[in-house]
C-alpha cells in the first residue's frame, strides 16, 4: 500500500484567453500527477511546455479551468476565503528571479517577516526572533536582516526567498527554476541547503526546472512535459538511465556534458525546430513534428498514457520499442 499523496492534480487543464482574440490557449492540458509526503518531484520541459503553470496550480496561484487539485484530500477551492488563506501557508513557492521576487523597498528581514505579520498570531519580538533564526538556518548572517535586496548577491537573495517560504512552516514548497539564475558554485550551495532543509523540516518539493542535471540531483520522481501534456513520468533513476519517450531521450542527449572530446561515445540527438505554438498544437502526438521516430500513426492517433514498469508512465506509441533512435 502506497502512502496517500499529499498533493494531487487530476486531469487539470488551464486555458488562457489570448488578448485581442477569441482563441484560447491551453497551457496545461489534462495533467494528472501525485506528490507523496517528503518526496521531491521534478518537472522538466522546454519554455512553453506549461511546467511553471503546473507549479502554480499546485500552490493555488492559478486556478485550473477544469480538473481537480487536492491537498491531503481537500479541495482548496471549496474552502471559505478565511480557511483558504490559512491553508495556503502550507503551500509555498520560491521563484526564479531573486531580484523580482523581493520588494526592493523592504529590508530583507522585513520581507521574511511579512508572512508572519499577515498571520498575526505572534508578538513582534517573537516574529523577529523567528526571522533571525531562519536567516541563520539558511546560511545568512543576521546582520543582513537590515540590508536591502540590492545590497545582497544573487545567492544571498535566493536564500532570503527560501527563508521567506519557510516562515510559515509549510508542507510543500514549489521551486520554480529556483537555482537557474545562479553561478554553478552558488547553485551547488543552494541545492545542498534545499536538501538539508527537506530532511530537517520534512518538506515536500516540486522542482520545476529546465536543467536536467539539477532536477535529477534533487528528485525522486521526474515528470517530463511538452506543450501542456505529460510525456513521461517515472522514478528519477529509471528516467535518467532508461528513458522511453523520444522527447526525454532528446532532452537527455541535448544536455551538454563536460566530457573530453576523446571520451565521447554517443552521437547526440539534436532535435530539429522549436516547440510549436500552443495555440495550434499538432494533431495526434504533440511531439510528432520534432520526433525522430514519428510515423503516420502519430499524426492521427494520440498516444495513450500507458504504464511501463513500476510507477513509470509514458505517452508514446513506440515506447519500449525504440532501439538507438529508430523503431
Amino acid at each position: 500500500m502506497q502512502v496517500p499523496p499529499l498533493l494531487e492534480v487530476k486531469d487539470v487543464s488551464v486555458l488562457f484567453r489570448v488578448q485581442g482574440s477569441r482563441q484560447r490557449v491551453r497551457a496545461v492540458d489534462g495533467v494528472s500527477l501525485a506528490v507523496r509526503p517528503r518526496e521531491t518531484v521534478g518537472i522538466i520541459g522546454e519554455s512553453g511546455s506549461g511546467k511553471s503553470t503546473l507549479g502554480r496550480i499546485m500552490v493555488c496561484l492559478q486556478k485550473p479551468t477544469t480538473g481537480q487539485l487536492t491537498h491531503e484530500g481537500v479541495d482548496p477551492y471549496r474552502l471559505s476565503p478565511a480557511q483558504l488563506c490559512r491553508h495556503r501557508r502550507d503551500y509555498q513557492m520560491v521563484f526564479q528571479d531573486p531580484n523580482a521576487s523581493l520588494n526592493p523597498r523592504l529590508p530583507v528581514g522585513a520581507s521574511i517577516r511579512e508572512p508572519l505579520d499577515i498571520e498575526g498570531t505572534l508578538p513582534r519580538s517573537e516574529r523577529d526572533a523567528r526571522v533571525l533564526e531562519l536567516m541563520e538556518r539558511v546560511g545568512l548572517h543576521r546582520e543582513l536582516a537590515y540590508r536591502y535586496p540590492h545590497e545582497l548577491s544573487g545567492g544571498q537573495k535566493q536564500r532570503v526567498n527560501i527563508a521567506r517560504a519557510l516562515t510559515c512552516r509549510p508542507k510543500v514548497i514549489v521551486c520554480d527554476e529556483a537555482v537557474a539564475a545562479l553561478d554553478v558554485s552558488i547553485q551547488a550551495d543552494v541545492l545542498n541547503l534545499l536538501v538539508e532543509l527537506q530532511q530537517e523540516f520534512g518538506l515536500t518539493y516540486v522542482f520545476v526546472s529546465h536543467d536536467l542535471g539539477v532536477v535529477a540531483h534533487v528528485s525522486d520522481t521526474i515528470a517530463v512535459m511538452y506543450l501542456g501534456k505529460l510525456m513521461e513520468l517515472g522514478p528519477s533513476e529509471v528516467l535518467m538511465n532508461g528513458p522511453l519517450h523520444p522527447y526525454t531521450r532528446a532532452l537527455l542527449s541535448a544536455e551538454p556534458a563536460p566530457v573530453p572530446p576523446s571520451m565521447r561515445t554517443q552521437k547526440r540527438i539534436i532535435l530539429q525546430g522549436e516547440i510549436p505554438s500552443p495555440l495550434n498544437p499538432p494533431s495526434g502526438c504533440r511531439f510528432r513534428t520534432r520526433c525522430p521516430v514519428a510515423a503516420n500513426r502519430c499524426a492521427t492517433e494520440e498516444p495513450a498514457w500507458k504504464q511501463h514498469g513500476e510507477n513509470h508512465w509514458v505517452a508514446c506509441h513506440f515506447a519500449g520499442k525504440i532501439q538507438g533512435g529508430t523503431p
Partner: protein
Amino acid sequence: MQDIDNQTGEIGRHPMQGTVVPLLEVRNLSISFRTANGVLNIVPDLSFSVGYGERLAVVGESGSGKTITGLALIGLLPRNQAVLNGQILFEGRNLIGLSEQELRAFRGRQIGMVFQEPMSALDPVFTIGQQIVETIRHHFGISARAARERAVEMLDKVGIPAARKRVDEYPHQLSGGMRQRAMLAIALACEPRMLIADEPTTALDVTIQAQILELMVRLSEETRTAILFISHDLGAVSEVCSRMLTMYAGQLVEDAVLDAVLRRPLHPYTSGLLRSLPRFSRKGDRLPSIGGRVPPPTAMPSGCRFEQRCVHAIDACRNPQMVVTLPDGRRVCCHRHAELHLPGSVD
C-alpha cells in the same frame, strides 16, 4: 560572396592554425575603471593567445572578469571610464590606442560579437534584415540590393527557415533561438576572423542550445573563424571548444587543452567548478561546492586570490602567485599545482 571579396580586396585566410603568429595575442593586459573612489583595477595582468580558427573557452563565475575582457578586446568599454594597459595584438596590430574611427572599421569586420540576451542586443525598431544590411554596408559599401541578398543568404546559413520572409520581421516576432541565430548572422555577415560569444546560449532551452552550439561549431569550421566562447557553462564549453582558460577574480588561473583540463585540472578553482556540477552526484549526496564568493575588487587579497575559498590553501598561498608555463604548454597560477592531485569532471 565573391563580389564582396573583390571590392575590399580581401586576401585569403591565414594558412594554418598552429603557425607561429597567433590571430590574437593579449600581452599583459590590465583593465581598470575610474570610479568615484579612485581607480579600481579589475583585471591586473592577463596574457593569452587565440590561434587562427581556434575555439577557445573563457570560464569563471560572475565577477571573474571574463565579460570585461571580451568587451576590452573589441574596444567596447566606455572610453571615459576604462583604462587599458598592455597590448591586444590582432594579427600583430595593437588595438589599444586605436581611435574610435579606426575601431569602427575594425569592430564587426575583424572581430564580431554575440551577446547573451539577443532581445536586448537587437534593435527592436528595425527589422532583422535592416540590421544585417546596416552592418554589411558599413563595412563593404555595396549596394542596398546586394546587401539585402547577402542578408537573406546569411539568415539561410544560420538555419532560419523561410529566410526571404523572415528578413523583414522584427526581433519580437522571432523566438529566442531564432533571435540568437539572427545575432550570429549579423556577427558573421562580415566574415570576421574571430567571433566573441558571450554566454550565447545561457538564455535558451537545452534543445535550442544544442542546435546553436552545433551551428557555431559548423560555421567556425566552414569559415575558419576563431571563437572566443565566454561562458560559465562548462558543459556547453566542452561541446564547442578545444582549449579552456579559467579566470578567477580578474586573473587567469589555468589555461589548458580541454581534454587535459577535464581529466586532471591543475588549479583547485577549476577542479571546484567542474565538481560542483550536479551531474556527478547521486540523489541525496552533497554537491561538492566551492563555498564563499569572489572577493570584491576593493578588497583583493595580495596573495593568491582564491586562497580564502581554497581547501588546499597553506601559509605560502598568501604570497603573490605567478602564472607558470609547464613544459607541455599548459599554464597554471598555483604554486601547489605539482603536489596536488585534483579531480576533474571524469574519473
